């Protein structure tokens, strides 16, 4: 077996440049005659802009230009588009208010873009931005998600009650009938709190207009440069698509927050022609907290009906989801298509109904963040199942087993068809790996020390590999969701691959190279993966939703297969055989049943030096491309088990052990997969234990705008995770892969909260489970017990 092919723990090819400081990020790019931008941001959550006096700022040293919403209005530039149309249950479309790239008339959240100052240096731009005189008329702010629809203030005139849409999905009547015949109905109210995405590299952009070619180039920290270009050209700026190049070079983390088309880079592109010089902007950390699209922010009530044996009969979920002040690129899809469709979980619940009310608030926009809808769904389902188990006095593993889906393909009542899975295997595997059998003794030992110990399960499922374009389109997507791949074989047999997927930490340069090296039987060092440049890559839908390998990798495999097919024809000519008799094994084209063979590099050389070549039947060259559109989502699933110890004196939670038994389908590089799982777990457990993006409920001021107040997880908050895999190969893509990027963040939060509530004997505690919150929950429970 190849040591650098599929299944090998190859160390990451990209890490040398990252770890030695040789990565090339957007902020590293300095263009000739570079200028720098600073954005004037609203200090108010909701205010009219009565006037802007830029006289003093314009006179500051180094200032090149200043633009405000008035300039945008006069230039007739469109607003930022929303990429997914959602229809309310009454048949009306979601309300999509304008999203201007600089505020026109009103600012709608703290950090909203009021003006831009462009200067010779960043410091000069910031100094001038500081003296911009903006006359604000302060308005009351709509802040809390749960009460936005009842507010007397409207964020947008178009939505007087702040409701963007009310989406219903599933069988409402069926659920009602199930509730009527239920033995027991468990209920749960919970908040899935708002999170800030916190990519290590803040957002950045550098835009330049070239007068000779009349074209733009935008360097931007982004997860999908072709989508960025398409949306910005076609829907906002009206630039012909072939007159714009978008480069997303090395990108230091995205977690969803760099999918979207933001105001900042759009302003830069527009202004670069006006100014006639390149303009760069790099967010500082507080700007990132203020203006990156946030994640989650749901308020939910769930009810689960069961028969006397704990079989789930019906499940109803009512959620209010914050959109923030404007609709970010995929904001509307996250709490609907990526949430409501996942509420079956791993279970056979026959009737499910979900109703989602999306509301505008005077806060930063909310959009996809690692998992995007699926963590919210998993949190509801797996917390609900835990509450149900306790209500029914059943073992939480047993109630899960009693309801598992076991026949595939399985059509859920919420619109998905799971192709394959083995949920007993991942649950049993997790129980064994975690040594659940030893938990009682560990709990007794903790209690002997005055501590409380608890154990929690989470059997999650996600829909990844986004997505079959026709399905997505039927669900409201305003884009396709295929991927492209090009395999360019050079004369010497060295290979360059061009993929529409984009790596911003996932290790594609290694994983994809392993796939290609394995298929072509060549060393991994003979393969280079190119991505992130619209002038190099055919087209691309980008990286999110754990889709890169399942969709982008499949496109590459299709292109490799075409290379091999053409290679066989060339080899057949060289070996004087029929191409149907040629097989390709370990990098050699062989005439079946003979020792006649020709290596891959000889075939590639022949393709480019076609002296002895069937020119009448075959074009020279060896370069193939392919588009792959999946026929279904992929369904990674698994069981996570978390074990905690709680100090009853302080409420502090220690995660003693965490086990993740996942099914990602086939695995190309187990080391990279483990890394993805570890990172995902850190984010999921960070949400459950620490992170909370807080706006002042009255003023709408962002109170967690730096790492002084926003608690990020650190390595010493966690034990060494135990991770394992049980593979059921995906049935519908050529690699049999499902995706692993989001699973950790999806599965882990309910496991931790289930463990804490088990330890301290309360029904529910909202995330993050800070020591104060845990301590108060324990006091409340103690008082209730005495009463």
């Amino acid at each position, binding site marked *: 077996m190849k040591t650098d092919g599929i299944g090998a723990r190859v160390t990451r090819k990209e890490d040398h440049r990252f770890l030695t400081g040789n990565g090339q990020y957007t902020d590293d790019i300095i263009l000739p005659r570079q200028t720098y931008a600073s954005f004037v941001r609203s*200090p108010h959550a909701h205010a009219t802009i009565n006037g802007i006096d830029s006289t003093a700022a314009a006179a500051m040293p180094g200032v090149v230009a200043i633009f405000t919403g008035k300039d945008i209005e006069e230039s007739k530039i469109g607003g930022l588009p929303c990429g997914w149309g959602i229809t309310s249950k009454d048949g009306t479309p979601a309300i999509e208010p304008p999203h201007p790239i600089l505020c026109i008339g009103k600012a709608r959240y703290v950090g909203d873009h009021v003006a831009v100052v462009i200067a010779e240096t960043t410091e000069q731009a910031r100094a001038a*931005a*500081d003296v911009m005189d903006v006359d604000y008329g302060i308005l009351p702010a709509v802040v809390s998600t749960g009460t936005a629809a009842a507010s007397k203030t409207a964020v947008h005139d178009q939505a007087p009650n702040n409701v963007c849409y009310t989406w219903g999905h599933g069988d409402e009547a069926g659920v009602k009938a199930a509730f009527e015949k239920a033995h027991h109905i468990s209920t749960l109210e919970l908040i899935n709190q708002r999170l800030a995405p916190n990519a290590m590299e803040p957002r950045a952009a550098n835009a330049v207009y070239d007068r000779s070619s009349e074209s733009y180039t935008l360097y931007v920290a982004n997860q999908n440069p072709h989508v960025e270009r398409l949306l910005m050209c076609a829907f906002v700026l009206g630039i012909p698509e072939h007159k714009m190049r978008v480069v997303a070079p090395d990108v230091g983390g995205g977690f969803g927050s760099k999918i979207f088309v933001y105001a900042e880079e759009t302003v830069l592109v527009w202004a670069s022609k006006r100014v006639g010089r390149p303009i760069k902007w790099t967010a500082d950390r*507080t700007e990132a907290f203020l203006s990156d699209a946030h994640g989650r922010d749901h308020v939910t009530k769930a009810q689960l009906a069961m028969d006397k044996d704990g079989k789930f009969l019906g499940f109803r979920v009512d959620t209010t989801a914050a959109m923030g002040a404007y609709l970010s690129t995929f904001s509307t899809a996250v709490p609907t298509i990526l949430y409501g469709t996942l509420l079956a979980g791993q279970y056979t619940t026959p009737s499910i109904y979900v109703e989602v009310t999306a509301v505008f608030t005077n806060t930063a926009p909310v959009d996809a963040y690692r998992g995007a809808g699926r963590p919210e769904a998993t949190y509801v389902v797996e917390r609900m199942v835990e509450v149900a188990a306790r209500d029914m006095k059943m073992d939480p593993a047993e109630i899960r087993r009693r309801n598992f889906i076991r026949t595939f393909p399985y059509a859920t009542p919420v619109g998905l068809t799971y192709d394959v899975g083995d949920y007993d295997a991942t649950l049993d595997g997790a129980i064994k790996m975690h040594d659940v059998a030893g938990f009682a003794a560990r709990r007794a030992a903790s209690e002997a020390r005055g501590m409380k110990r608890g154990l929690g399960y989470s059997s999650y499922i996600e829909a990844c590999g986004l997505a079959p374009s026709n399905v997505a389109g039927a669900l409201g997507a305003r884009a396709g969701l295929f991927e492209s791949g090009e395999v360019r074989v050079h004369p010497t047999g060295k290979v360059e691959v061009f993929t529409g997927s984009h790596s911003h930490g996932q290790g594609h340069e290694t994983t994809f190279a392993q796939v290609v090296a394995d298929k072509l039987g060549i060393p991994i060092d003979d393969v280079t993966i190119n991505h992130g440049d619209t002038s190099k890559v055919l087209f691309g839908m980008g990286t999110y939703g754990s889709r890169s390998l399942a969709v982008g990798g499949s496109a590459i495999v299709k292109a490799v297969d075409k290379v091999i097919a053409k290679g066989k024809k060339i080899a057949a000519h060289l070996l004087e055989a029929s191409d149907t008799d040629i097989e390709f094994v370990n990098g050699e084209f062989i005439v079946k049943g003979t020792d006649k063979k020709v290596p891959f590099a000889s075939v590639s050389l022949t393709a480019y030096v076609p002296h002895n070549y069937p020119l009448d039947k075959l074009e020279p060259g060896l370069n193939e491309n392919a588009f792959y559109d999946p026929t279904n989502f992929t369904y990674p699933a698994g069981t996570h088990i978390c074990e905690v110890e709680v100090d009853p004196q302080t409420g502090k939670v220690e995660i003693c052990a965490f086990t993740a038994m996942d099914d990602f389908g086939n695995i190309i590089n187990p080391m990279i997969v483990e890394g993805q799982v570890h990172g995902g777990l850190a984010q999921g457990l960070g949400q459950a234990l620490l992170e909370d993006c807080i706006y002042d409920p009255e*003023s709408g*001021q962002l*109170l967690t705008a730096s790492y002084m107040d926003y608690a990020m997880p650190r390595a010493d908050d966690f034990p060494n995770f135990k991770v394992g895999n049980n593979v059921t190969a995906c049935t519908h893509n050529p690699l049999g892969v499902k995706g692993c990027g989001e699973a950790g963040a999806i599965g882990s939060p309910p496991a931790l909260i289930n463990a804490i509530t088990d330890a301290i004997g309360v029904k529910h505690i909202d995330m993050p489970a800070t020591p104060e919150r845990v301590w108060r929950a324990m006091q409340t429970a103690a008082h209730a017990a005495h009463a």
Partner: protein
Amino acid sequence: MDMKDSRIINAPQAKVWAALNDPAMLKQCIIGCDSLEATDEGTFVAAMSVKVGPVSAKFKGKLQLEDVQPPNSYKLKFEGQGGPAGFANGTANVSLTAESPTSTRLDYVANAMIGGKLAQIGSRLVDAAARKIADDFFSKFDALVGEAMPQSTEVTNASAAESPVATSKPVVPIWVWIVAAVVVAALLYKWCL
């Protein structure tokens, strides 16, 4: 943010009340107080510069007194703009109580809504800095009132003729402003960090 504290000033209540309305005295206690003017009955405009480490910020504030009960208590509404540093609005309730013939207890409860960079920088820094600045102010005030009461009274009398803060008006305003200024200065101080 909320700030609540009690201080014992080593002077009789009437003297404390008077001193709190003595601009010269107050200027000595507030570093960076550039101006303080009465614009209307019970309304004041103040400006101060705060310099912390390498950073300077100018703050413009408006103060309004309500429920003035000399020499016992009043309520202060304040709003201030710190330019790029952000803004602060709020109220402070201040009261004086005679503890003994020679000492006075001063209670204050201030509640401020802060915005912009001040809010973003984080409450832990703001709260700690506000408390430190308040402590510094009152320590100096206590020392000066205790030591220099006769002289201070003279200054008050002398200034009364030319100062807009005439004896006929409630003397409270200035000292209320001080509390507000302290809060504001604390915020700026924190921002500067």
